[in-house]
């Protein structure tokens, strides 16, 4: 029996090899025409709008072809570093989450753009430009601001006739009511650690009038004390809550109130068409309402030969015409004061929440040791809020640790 199989196996074994050799020889794209390789991290709907309505405009104007690739925020730095050290430049321009910039600076992977600041159109919001600076050097270009909004389960709130909380006390009261009524916490905090937890605490500290990087000033202590008080009434899912799992927790109604980036609207409302999901800008603390402005920035790899073309593309993306397409089609907040466009139908109410939150937006000061800050603020959160440790002492302990680690960064 084996020899029979062996005969025809040998035959199609050779067939397969020849096919493979032809195939993989053929699939090396020969790059004759001028191209611009850009990478971003967007949703499928966002990619469709950019590739079908925006890129063709630029390609016609400059007779070049744009190759656009999806790279997750966490994987971009490693790829850039590998390409840089191998002396290859496959990526000419990238858009990166403004929380993940420090590694690009620390490993010196990007071009210093200070000298091109003049190319940014005047209508672009001034503080947006400052948010792209590291120690005064313009290392990135504004691409798209973003701000987190609060999602809440309208039916649940109606059931217990509660209104979306506008202050810390109302938030605490809402959390207590849910806990009491459903013996399970239904307000979601981001306790998984990493950027989601750090950004959330950063906002609470701002709302308490503190300076997050001081780590143990009066505002920080007030924020941590409040969070410590809130924690017992919070949903148990908070331990696994980060930006991607929050959508699922909200959809499965394990939580009735949670903060997340606007991309959740597309998934929860458009894709899952859940009627009970509503949004609003959020609550204010003792010193007012503040929201950290996140979003993406443009960066140019240090070793790209197509710097000029990349800069033109950035300018093109910052033009009024493109910004208005982004606002109307994707409901993205605009970087320009003068981009007024009607947001399409179903997105309008959700867009409202984003614009009001943006009005209360504050830029996080860019520091190279942001990952160390994230690590220690998360550990502080776990020890104080979950572990119920003493607030001031623990914050001091982690402040010392942070000071020691700063030397590792630039």
């Amino acid at each position, binding site marked *: 029996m084996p020899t029979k199989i062996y005969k025809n196996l040998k035959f199609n074994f050779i067939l397969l090899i020849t096919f493979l050799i032809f195939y993989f020889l053929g699939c090396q794209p020969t790059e004759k025409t001028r191209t611009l390789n850009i990478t971003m991290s967007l949703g499928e709907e966002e990619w469709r709008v950019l590739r079908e309505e925006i890129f063709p405009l630029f390609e016609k104007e400059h007779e070049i072809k744009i190759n656009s690739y999806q790279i997750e925020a*966490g994987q971009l*730095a*490693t790829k850039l*570093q590998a390409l*840089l*050290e191998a002396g290859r430049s496959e990526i000419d321009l990238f858009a990166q989450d403004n929380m993940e910039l*420090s*590694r690009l600076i*620390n*490993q*010196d*992977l990007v071009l210093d753009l200070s000298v091109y600041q003049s190319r940014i159109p005047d209508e672009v919001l001034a503080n947006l430009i400052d948010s792209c600076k590291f120690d005064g050097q313009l290392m990135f270009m504004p691409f798209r601001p973003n701000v987190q909004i609060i999602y809440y389960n309208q039916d649940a709130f109606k059931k217990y006739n509660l209104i979306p909380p506008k202050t810390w006390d109302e938030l605490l009261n809402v959390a207590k009511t849910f806990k009491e009524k459903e013996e399970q916490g239904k307000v979601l905090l981001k306790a*998984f*650690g*990493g950027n989601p937890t750090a950004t959330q605490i950063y906002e609470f500290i701002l709302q308490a009038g503190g300076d997050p990087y001081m780590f143990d000033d009066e505002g920080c202590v007030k924020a941590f004390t409040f969070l410590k008080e809130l924690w017992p009434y919070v*949903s*148990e*899912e908070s*331990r*696994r809550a*980060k930006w991607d*799992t929050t959508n699922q927790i909200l959809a*499965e109604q*394990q939580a009735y109130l949670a903060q997340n980036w606007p991309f959740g609207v597309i998934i929860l409302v458009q894709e899952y068409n859940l009627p009970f999901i509503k949004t609003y800008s959020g609550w204010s603390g003792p010193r007012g309402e503040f929201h950290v402005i996140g979003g993406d920035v443009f960066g140019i790899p240090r070793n790209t030969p197509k710097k000029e073309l990349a800069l033109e593309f950035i300018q093109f993306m910052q033009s009024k015409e493109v910004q208005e397409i982004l606002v109307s089609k994707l409901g993205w907040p605009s970087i320009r004061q003068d981009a007024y466009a009607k947001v399409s139908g179903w997105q309008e109410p959700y867009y409202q929440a984003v614009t009001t939150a943006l009005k209360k937006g504050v830029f996080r000061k860019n520091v190279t040791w942001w*990952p*160390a800050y*994230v*690590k220690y603020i*998360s550990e502080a959160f*776990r020890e104080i809020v*979950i572990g119920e440790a003493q607030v001031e002492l623990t914050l001091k302990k982690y402040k010392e640790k942070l000071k020691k*680690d700063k030397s*590792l*960064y*630039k």
Partner: protein
Amino acid sequence: MLEHIKKHRYKILCIAPLLIFLLIFTFLPIAQVIILSFQPAAKTDSVTPPGSGDNFTLAHYQDLFFQKDFRQAFFNTVFIAFLSLALELSLGLSFALLLCKNSKIIRFLRPLFILPLAIPTTVVGVMMSYLFTASGWLNRIFLNLRIIDSPIYWMSGGVKSLLMIALADCWKVTPLVMLILLAGIQSIDTSLYKAARIDGAGSFYIFKRITLPLLLPSITAAVIIRGIDAFRIFALPLILMGQNLKVIGTFAYLEYSEFNNPYVSAASAVLLLIMILSAVLFYIKVVGKKGIVPA
């Protein structure tokens, strides 16, 4: 020596491609990592390729031992490795004993048991997050069956999370251990069982005095293949617990990608390598010849 090589010319020719490939694509990078772990953390702007600075320092290793984080990661790794290894061996053995008969149904059902082996780790991570969340399926089933009265918070760190990761890892890999042990069982001559039964041995006694000792070589194979991967666990803890529960694998990754400290990351990787190597060599010495060459 020369005529020795000449005699084995043919064999060496066959092994050459394998060893050359491994040399270039694994031994060299490992050497690079080892060198990096001893290099002083020169204040270079970017991580220039290692080997440039030639002086030698143990700072990173000292740094590791003082870090509570690393000691915790070390304990977590050892705990998960031994727990998942024990689970895999016991489950694998019981499945193997159950499935060693060659009836038609068993031959049809056996591939079903191999399925988990075929599922990518990223998918396993997603699956396990459906099971182990506070309101996940596991809690719901236990609640329905009244095994527990309030949900277990698997992801809240501590021993519960270690158990979760071990269970997740063990779910994907038990089939491999089962197959290896199944091979061992089926190579035992059945007349031994007949002889033992006539000598008056009960089935448990037969298992203890005959099946188990003769299975030792297969158990060794399973322990070595699985032991290495169990210590090296990385994807599951990262997906399920992120920074809340670090094993040496995730510690090395985060130290490098997040906290911009390639030297400490390299040092932790080297420590893991030494740990696995000594564990394997120790096991071989303990088990000795009879554990390796089948009787």
